[in-house]
């Protein structure tokens, strides 16, 4: 296929993201939602859909849905009607799923995502609605039968649906990365795509550039990581363009992503799709979310990465890149801010976080939540350097590892024990300076003759002879005086 053919087409993509909410109990009953329990132990007559049972609202789930809506600039609906989506499947105990159809709780929002080239793209959010999860069918646990685990049945979900505003796999990647960061910041979902607590479906079509009508859209499911979302979309765009270029039709269908092969495969045609027969859920009266409720949720909203980045740029005078690295997770940003609460040297705090601390966490495979050092201890290290007591390299290469091993000792004590306290007394340093100049008398002559870059050699020698304890600034000053 001629490579240029791809440039003639434009992809149009909409994403549907399902996020399992971090509530303690299920959407419409009090069963626990804890992950990983023995199969069919977190069930009750309600989640099993026994005859005569009825659902009841879980206010926590509603609060979390409102939080998400507020974070992505949505309108919050006042009168919320639940609906039933009817279909038969083994892991759907009632034969219908309680969801929202015509009245999603959040609607008409947007999210601005940063792309690789530094530009910003606004992606419209059509809706966020609440629904319950189904159970889980397991086809590989038993030789003869499929087994069903109903623990997940009734777990609250939100579904976040974009407008078809996304134009490339790269944009989809940026969007889902940001959505995952937001749900984690908001504590509404653990964002784990591998375990399925965050799931993404993509609706993809292609059309000739400049066309005014979208092509036939294909839904792709089962992309269980963010990079698989990108791979699947890239593949699917290419597949559709090639099919059209070869004179074939695109069928409205649902495809699944095969991560091993990197391809999408047909699951079912949409032309024979289920009619879900949505209608208002008669067992739940309309849920009224008034402004006071929304305001109340607003007060529980944590600062989101975008706001933190702005703050770090203006208050801490950091660059945008540094600020975005520091806000990657809420815990990391929080730690950083606590360090900044104990030092005025914000730039140093940022460098410590992105350098020494980050490498330590990477090397040990731990995260900031379980990091043994307190933010005040990092601030202490910064102060030692700033006060000229220890050098920057001694602080990060020697004191920091020692402190991680024995956090109770204190940075200053450890620096003393390691004999790293810098000599900042001119009287003590002067003899060493004299000694070095005497030993390198030939070089001194060369220096005086104009070879000024020899200063580095003298400083290095002083440092060496002082056992690394010489304050570089003072050393420079003394050498300068002696050599003038």
């Amino acid at each position, binding site marked *: 296929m001629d490579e240029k053919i791809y440039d003639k087409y434009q992809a149009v993509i909409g994403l549907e993201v399902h996020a399992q909410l971090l509530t303690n109990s299920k959407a419409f009953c009090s069963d626990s939602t804890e992950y990983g329990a023995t199969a069919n132990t977190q069930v009750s007559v309600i989640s099993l859909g026994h*005859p005569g049972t009825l659902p009841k609202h879980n206010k926590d789930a509603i609060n979390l849905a409102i939080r998400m809506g507020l974070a992505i600039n949505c309108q919050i609906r006042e009168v919320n009607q639940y609906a039933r989506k009817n279909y038969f499947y083994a892991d759907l*105990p009632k*034969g219908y799923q309680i969801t929202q159809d015509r009245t999603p709780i959040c609607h008409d929002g947007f999210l601005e995502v940063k792309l690789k080239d530094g530009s910003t793209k606004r992606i419209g959010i059509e809706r966020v609605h609440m629904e319950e999860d189904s159970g889980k069918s397991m086809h590989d646990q038993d030789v003869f039968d499929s087994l069903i685990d109903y623990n997940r049945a009734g777990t609250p979900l939100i579904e976040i649906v974009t407008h078809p505003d996304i134009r490339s796999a790269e944009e989809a990647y940026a969007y889902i990365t940001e959505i995952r960061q937001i749900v984690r910041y908001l504590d509404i979902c653990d964002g784990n795509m591998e375990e399925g607590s965050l799931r993404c479906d993509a609706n993809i079509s292609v059309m000739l550039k400049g066309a005014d009508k979208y092509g036939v859209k294909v839904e792709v499911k089962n992309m269980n990581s963010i990079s698989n979302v990108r791979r699947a979309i890239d593949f699917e765009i290419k597949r559709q363009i090639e099919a059209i270029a070869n004179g074939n039709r695109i069928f409205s269908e649902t495809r699944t992503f095969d991560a091993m092969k990197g391809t999408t495969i047909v699951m079912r045609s949409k032309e024979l799709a289920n009619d879900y027969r*949505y*209608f208002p859920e008669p*067992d739940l*009266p309309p849920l009224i979310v008034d402004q006071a409720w929304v305001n109340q949720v607003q007060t529980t909203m944590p600062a989101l990465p975008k706001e933190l980045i702005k703050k770090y740029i203006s208050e801490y005078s950091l660059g945008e890149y540094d600020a975005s690295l520091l806000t990657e997770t809420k815990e990391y940003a929080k730690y950083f801010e606590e360090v900044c609460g104990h030092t005025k040297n914000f730039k140093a705090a940022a460098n410590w976080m992105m350098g020494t601390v980050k490498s330590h966490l990477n090397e040990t495979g731990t995260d900031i939540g379980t990091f043994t050092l307190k933010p005040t201890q990092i601030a202490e290290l910064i102060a030692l350097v700033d006060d000229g007591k220890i050098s920057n390299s001694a602080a990060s290469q020697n004191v920091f590892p020692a402190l991680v091993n024995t956090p109770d000792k204190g940075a200053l004590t450890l620096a003393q024990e390691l004999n790293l306290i810098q000599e900042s007394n001119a009287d003590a340093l002067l003899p060493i300076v004299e000694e070095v100049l005497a030993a390198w008398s030939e070089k001194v002559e060369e220096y005086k003759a104009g070879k000024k870059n020899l200063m580095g050699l003298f400083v290095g020698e002083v440092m060496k002879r002082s056992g690394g304890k010489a304050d570089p600034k003072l050393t420079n000053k003394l050498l300068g005086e002696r050599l003038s």
Partner: protein
Amino acid sequence: MHKDYTNFRKLLDTGDANCVATVRGFLEKIENEMHLNSFIETWGEEALQRASEIDQKIQNRTAGKLAGMVIALKDNICYQGHKVSASSHILEGFESQYSSTVVQRILDEDAILIGRTNCDEFAMGASNETSYYGPVLNALDNSRVPGGSSGGATVAVQAGLCHAAIGSDTGGSIRQPASFCGVVGLKPSYGRISRWGLLAYASSFDQIGPLTNNVEDAALLLQVISGTDDYDATVSTLPVDNYTLSDENSPKKIAYLKECFGEGVDEEIKHQLYALFELMKAAGHTVEEVSFPYLDYLVPAYYVLTTAEASSNLSRYQGLQLGYRTAEKGDLDMLFKKSRSEGFGKEVKRRIMLGTFVLTSDFYDAYYSKAQKVRRLIRQKTDDILNTYDFILTPTTPTVAFKFGEKTQDPVAMYLADIFTVQANLSGHPAISVPGGKHSNGMPFGVQLMGKHFGEKKLLNFAKYLHNLAV
């Protein structure tokens, strides 16, 4: 033996009666009247055990409000550890793991549950002929139907096999058989009583209610089973009135619906009710004819909406987790199709298919949406009338109990048996049927009163007056 509870309780409290002997008496009578087919199962041993415990409580003066009231339960209300089947093959052998709120509340007040009673399958029917367990016979004339769907519960009360019964009413399933059998049947306001533990037919229509021999017993039962419940979000949080009846009989304004006295209504029923109006007027009440122009839309709107909800409510009966499963082996789709085809009866299947059809996206607006609009109009018009009048009065049924097989070949004719009762379910208003007279063929018929939303107190008081006036 007293058929009603209020008088029996007086004897209990004075020591002139006891629960054990009473339960034994009822069990014997049930045994003798087996041919009526009103009970699917009796819980004799358990009832006797409870009776002796309650006799003790009565002696100790610690007995509850319903102490010794022997109650029959319609077979669509859950009682922990007991079978419940909605008289359907698909739930044969199924035992409930929990008790409905209503059962819990009557047990807490020391009532005695004596058994579960036959009904139309999933409460879908007006003659008790759709039950998997066969029809129930009207005790007054065994060639006639008892009405439905709470046919077994009603006949149990009619034949004196218990003091009272708990039924459910989606379109008249308490009031219509009450009319056919000559007993009192109350459908409370939608949201007055928790539906937790009631096997749903049409969730936005279903209400549980009492079937009794007099209005006092209905009031007493209502008192116990009403009120807010954490397990049902559709129950009203309005406080429950004190339903104890009084002799208050200030002049009331009663509207009788012109269209309910037209063609198709038995002439004798009409004339006896007209005579009743004269008695009421003579006693100082105002009785006026009011037009209700939507009568022809009641039954169609009712069937569109209830079958839609039913098609979804009954989706849980799949042959997978609980209840009947086909013996045939095959894939999942086959399992669903075979189990449901073999497990449900003809009328239930008819309604599931009708409901599925009206909800399909191509027909949703033409049927479901339109029926919802009609429902709003009916509610509005009913409210309008009740803003001017205290009660709306109609015959409960256009005829007395009909003969077996008379309407089984014509579902529409069967559906019209509920023509006067569905209004209260569409609008959510409370309605009661009390015996209104006796036809020359010996069969009773009821008179129906509808009251304002949550106006059960006034409704019951006037119903008692009307009951006394009519008999």
